[in-house]
């Protein structure tokens, strides 16, 4: 490593760790988010369905029957109050006593459909229905299949994306506004050393972004990678490099911090929604799938989930590495080409 590159890298590192907000967004925030979501969806006991019985003749009997079952949380309310609760998400299903009994719910809400089935089953059995086919449940609670296991790779991917785009994009634009880029261009500094220092500084921060999150989630939620740590490391490096390239590209022309934050938000929000951070990509229509699979964040998260939950090997993850590699290389090359120094 030549002395200029070393000094540039050192300067980047010092500047970052001397900004408390960097520390917060990079290291503390993802951990807080993981804990908040991990606790909300810890999945130890299934959430009881929230059913509201509308206060009409017969309501007391229905409520009593439902209360005998742990699977349902029951309230008896007036029609207006019950409707309000359903609209605002406090109730999953309304039970309106009468002949026939009416279930009122939003069929697009999975929890409502589940609640309707549970409530109906309890009431039908109480009314004398018997199940003809003998069946019993085998419940899955082991690590690897819970929401937190799904969530941690998603958060990790989102974190690496944010680190790359904000950590490089924002800083380069700041240097441009400060006219530091211009002044450095007037020195014999090599342009590639400058850009390389930004990319390499991501490699310095990478362990700090990844390791504490994984260790804490392992300690508190028992989330542990099923696959090899080496593959996981290779994947996070590939993801970080990919977003380092994209961050450089986004910063290559922007002249104000408003422009760069707009560009970064424009790049990140669609990916946070589409790339399966919080829920599975398979929810989107088939026609969108090729596009979604081509996004760098999808590739990174798929790769992380592959290693962490399925124990996938490097060879099985080649398509993901290819997508990340292409994004990283292409955006870096274009960035170098169109970069505005002065």
């Amino acid at each position: 490593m030549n002395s200029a590159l070393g000094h540039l890298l050192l300067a980047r590192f010092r500047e970052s760790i001397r900004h408390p907000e960097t520390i917060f967004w990079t290291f503390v925030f993802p951990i807080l988010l993981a804990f908040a979501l991990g606790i909300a969806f810890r999945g130890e006991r299934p959430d009881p369905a929230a059913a509201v019985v509308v206060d009409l003749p017969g309501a007391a009997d229905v409520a009593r029957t439902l209360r005998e079952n742990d699977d349902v949380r029951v309230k008896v309310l007036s029609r207006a109050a019950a409707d309000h609760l359903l609209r605002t998400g406090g109730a999953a299903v309304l039970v309106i006593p009468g002949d026939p009994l009416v279930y009122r719910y939003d069929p697009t809400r999975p929890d409502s459909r589940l609640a309707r089935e549970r409530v109906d089953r309890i009431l039908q059995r109480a009314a004398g229905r018997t199940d003809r086919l003998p069946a019993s449940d085998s419940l899955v609670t082991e690590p690897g299949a819970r929401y937190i296991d799904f969530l941690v790779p998603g958060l990790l991917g989102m974190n690496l994306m944010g680190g790359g785009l904000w950590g490089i994009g924002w800083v380069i634009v700041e240097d441009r506004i400060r006219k530091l880029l211009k002044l450095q261009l007037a020195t014999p500094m090599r342009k590639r050393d400058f850009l390389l220092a930004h990319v390499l500084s991501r490699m310095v921060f990478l362990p700090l972004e990844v390791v504490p999150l994984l260790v804490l989630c392992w300690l508190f939620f028992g989330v542990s990678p099923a696959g090899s740590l080496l593959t996981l490391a290779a994947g996070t490096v590939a993801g970080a490099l990919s977003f380092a390239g994209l961050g450089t590209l986004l910063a290559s022309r922007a002249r104000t911090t408003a422009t760069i934050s707009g560009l970064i938000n424009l790049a990140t929000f669609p990916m946070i929604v589409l790339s399966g951070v919080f829920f599975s990509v398979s929810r989107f229509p088939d026609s969108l799938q090729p596009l979604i699979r081509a996004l760098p964040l999808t590739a990174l998260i798929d790769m992380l989930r592959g290693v962490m939950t399925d124990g996938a090997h490097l060879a099985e993850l080649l398509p993901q590495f290819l997508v990340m590699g292409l994004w990283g290389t292409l955006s870096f090359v274009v960035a170098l080409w169109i970069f505005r120094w002065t």
Partner: protein
Amino acid sequence: MRPVKETSPARGPAVSLRGLVKRYDTVVAVDSLDLEIRAGECFGLLGPNGAGKTTAIEILVGLQTPTAGQVEVLGQEWGKDDRSLRSRIGVSLQETRFPERLTVAEVVALFASFYPKSRDPLLVIREVGLVEKAGAWTSKLSGGQRQRLALACALAGDPELLVLDEPTTGLDPQARLAFGDSILSYKDRGCTILLSTHYMEEAQRLCDRVAIIDRGKALAVGSPGDLIATLDANLVVEVEMAAGDVEDEAVRQVAGVSSVRRENGALLVSVREAHITVPALLDLFRTRSATLAHLTLRQATLSDVYVSLTGRKYRDE
């Protein structure tokens, strides 16, 4: 201390600009500018804001390409082996803000690392008088200290040519004086210095030669003394009235008066021979019963040269 560089007249010019033009869409920032800066001298580009000084400097240090004209710096042209040329030039630009949370020593060391033959950063920091701030974050520096840091960065690579764009703008007069002294010490070591300023008295004090730039053109080039000598009257009588006034036309009629103008309520009269003209002026004021608040006789300055060249009043700000 490194040995003082030889400044024999045989050395070619440090900088030579011929027919330099820079045009943006509709604006002509530099309009066929010719300049030659000699090795080892301190040369000043002097002119109001917007005169084209910064554009000329940025072309000279290879940050902009000219629309037309030739640029030769230290015997080289831009576009061939720029890196080696850049390593011989130290630059400070206007309004550079250094990374806030790096220390002075870290910033200078960073810039030194870019140059193949750099100097010890701490030594440079001592020379610009920032030694007690070496460990301070740049965000804690005053305006003057920031300019000193910019100078230190320009000096970190041991340049043959030091180019400083408005190095003292925004400093108070005392800080400007101290800054000027630091710059002069580099000239003594054989470094060629080009600086731009809009402070006339600063150019007069620091520069061996100056070019008065206005609207992208060099109106005059020469030593401050020579430029002042080109005025047909090199003394100025400044008069402030306590009561009454005399119209300019009457003053102009007084023997030996070469020109009359007014600045900030004062009457400025350019004269050739004070011993003849000053008594005649006093007689005129007496006959018009105008009483003086004060009267000063001074040498003409570069500001007076600027006024005589452009016919416009020079504004410092």
